[in-house]
């Protein structure tokens, strides 16, 4: 029977997660997380000094998030996304299906090097405008962007900020990352493309006139060229840094600062716009969640959860990989993938003695990145899907979407887990 202290701590944790999930009265996630953290500090579940040390030690995460968002925003200001969409239109050569594949390729590339958010949030409206202008059905292309943002999220450590949370806490380098996740990644991207190409086959049979492609109006050609060169250098530096355990935040922040300097040099800098493009509330959210999750860790709850998961898997290595991936994916759905990732990091810390602990770390990365596609809660892509279809109304219901999600994503999770296990 847990004592009162543990029960109160667990209650604060669950209440925080509930507010994040339900968002009563529109309470922002960041406020919920900070509120939970304040209660944990007030209740003595985390000492203030411990909280400060914890946050200071996570400087790499904060720096990476800031640098990553700044790079995406500045690349957007240079016209990179419009130009890539235009190139996709050229590669399509008038065929809807070829354009679709080109959008997937561009989405995968942007996700790999600029993160999933850049694809879902910046590329999506650009592709929307492109498909509209070419008089093609818009929704398949919008879905392509939002889904590839998730399925290409585990190509590289920098492809999803969640990966950085894991890498920062659990260690690991590019070689290990690719060893465990390259095959699942290739499988999930291929599967995603094939399933969507089949689902939207009628719309993708359409052709378009390449002459309708819009001329990209770049703010400044020199700044654009500068940005292209710099992004290539940043991509190379990311790979080199990840391979050599060099902090990725330094690469991201340096890239962001150089792009910032370039924008200023070519008089393309819009400070107000840049400030708005960076999601400052994300920092507050992560800060709150770091403290809340540390509190449950201090109470020993994550250790108990880890012990339970270990017991559930028994001696089976495949079972352990599957359980961690599926459990993380489910949690990422129910709450949000940031808190779920932090809980799993703590759980994996408690399972350090497990014979395949390193593979389990990557199984958790896989689950946290891919899982949000499963149901209607917790994912950017699925929320978008539902928001659009709710308005459009009749052809596909929530239930139909749910059927698609629970058919496709578990196949990906099972096949991906199997591939991780085969590579042990």
């Amino acid at each position: 029977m847990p004592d009162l202290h543990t029960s109160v701590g667990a209650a604060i944790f669950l209440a925080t997660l509930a507010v994040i999930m339900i968002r009563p009265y529109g309470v922002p996630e960041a406020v919920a997380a900070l509120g939970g953290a304040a209660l944990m500090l007030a209740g003595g579940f985390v000492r203030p000094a411990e909280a400060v040390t914890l946050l200071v030690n996570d400087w790499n995460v904060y720096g990476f998030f800031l640098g990553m968002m700044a790079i995406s925003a500045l690349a957007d200001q240079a016209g990179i996304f419009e130009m890539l969409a235009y190139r996709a239109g050229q590669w399509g050569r008038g065929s809807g299906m070829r354009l679709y594949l080109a959008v997937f390729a561009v989405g995968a590339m942007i996700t790999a090097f600029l993160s999933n958010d850049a694809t879902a949030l910046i590329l999506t409206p650009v592709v929307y405008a492109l498909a509209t202008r070419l008089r093609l059905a818009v929704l398949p292309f919008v879905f392509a962007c939002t889904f590839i943002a998730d399925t290409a999220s585990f190509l590289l450590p920098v492809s999803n900020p969640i990966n950085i949370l894991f890498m920062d806490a659990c260690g690991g380098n590019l070689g290990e990352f690719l060893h465990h996740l390259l095959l699942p990644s290739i499988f999930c991207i291929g599967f995603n493309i094939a399933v969507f190409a089949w689902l939207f086959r009628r719309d993708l049979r359409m052709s378009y006139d390449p002459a309708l492609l819009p001329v990209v109006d770049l703010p400044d050609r020199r700044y654009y060229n500068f940005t292209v060169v710099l992004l290539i250098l940043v991509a190379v530096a990311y790979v080199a840094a990840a391979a050599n355990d060099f902090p990725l935040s330094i690469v991201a922040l340096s890239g962001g600062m150089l792009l910032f300097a370039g924008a200023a040099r070519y008089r393309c800098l819009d400070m107000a716009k840049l400030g708005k493009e960076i999601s400052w509330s994300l920092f507050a959210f992560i800060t709150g969640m770091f403290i809340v999750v540390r509190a449950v860790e201090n109470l020993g709850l994550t250790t108990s959860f880890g012990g339970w998961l270990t017991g559930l898997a028994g001696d089976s290595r495949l079972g352990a990989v599957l359980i961690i991936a599926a459990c993380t994916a489910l949690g990422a759905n129910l709450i949000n993938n940031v808190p779920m990732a932090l809980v799993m990091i703590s759980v994996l810390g408690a399972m350090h003695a497990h014979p395949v602990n390193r593979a389990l770390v990557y199984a958790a990365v896989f689950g946290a990145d891919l899982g949000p596609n499963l149901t209607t809660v917790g994912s950017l892509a699925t929320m978008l899907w539902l928001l659009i279809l709710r308005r459009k109304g009749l052809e596909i219901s929530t239930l139909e979407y749910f059927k698609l999600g629970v058919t496709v994503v578990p196949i990906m999770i099972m096949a991906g887990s199997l591939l991780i296990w085969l590579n042990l």
Partner: protein
Amino acid sequence: MRIICAIGRRGGPELIGRLAEIVGGHAEWLMLHVIDKGPRHDLEDFLRGPLHRRPDHGSPPHEMALDEAEETAGRAAVDEALAAARQAGLKAEASVRAGNPERTVVEFASEMQADLIAISGSEGAEGHPHMGPVSVGHTARFVIDHAPCDVLLFREKDRSGIL
């Protein structure tokens, strides 16, 4: 007789040709294309979400690019239909409006005191995953249910039945 032709992003000339075969040239033809702002607004609302705040997409240049793309595509669709109608010697006019397509078509028909609405059965079905039998798109279905006048529904020629 006044006929409203609901022109989608594509297929306008084909609709006009097939309709002219049925009703002949003794009518007043009004071509209407509606720019569907729904998905775009949903997209923008989503992008302004608390943790994924991107107000930029509610302002230039993306806003301008989206407006321009929708205008260009809509205008091209009605111009194409209008050219087909005039080539067939029909008395036709064109209009582009923005809003909810199904409601706008019905309201336009009331406003113009139309006698007939001609619409393709696939209107409103584009972009939806084909996961089961679909009879008509949601725009066409709404128009059938709520039109203040008769409705003539055109089916796609290459429909292959279920799925």
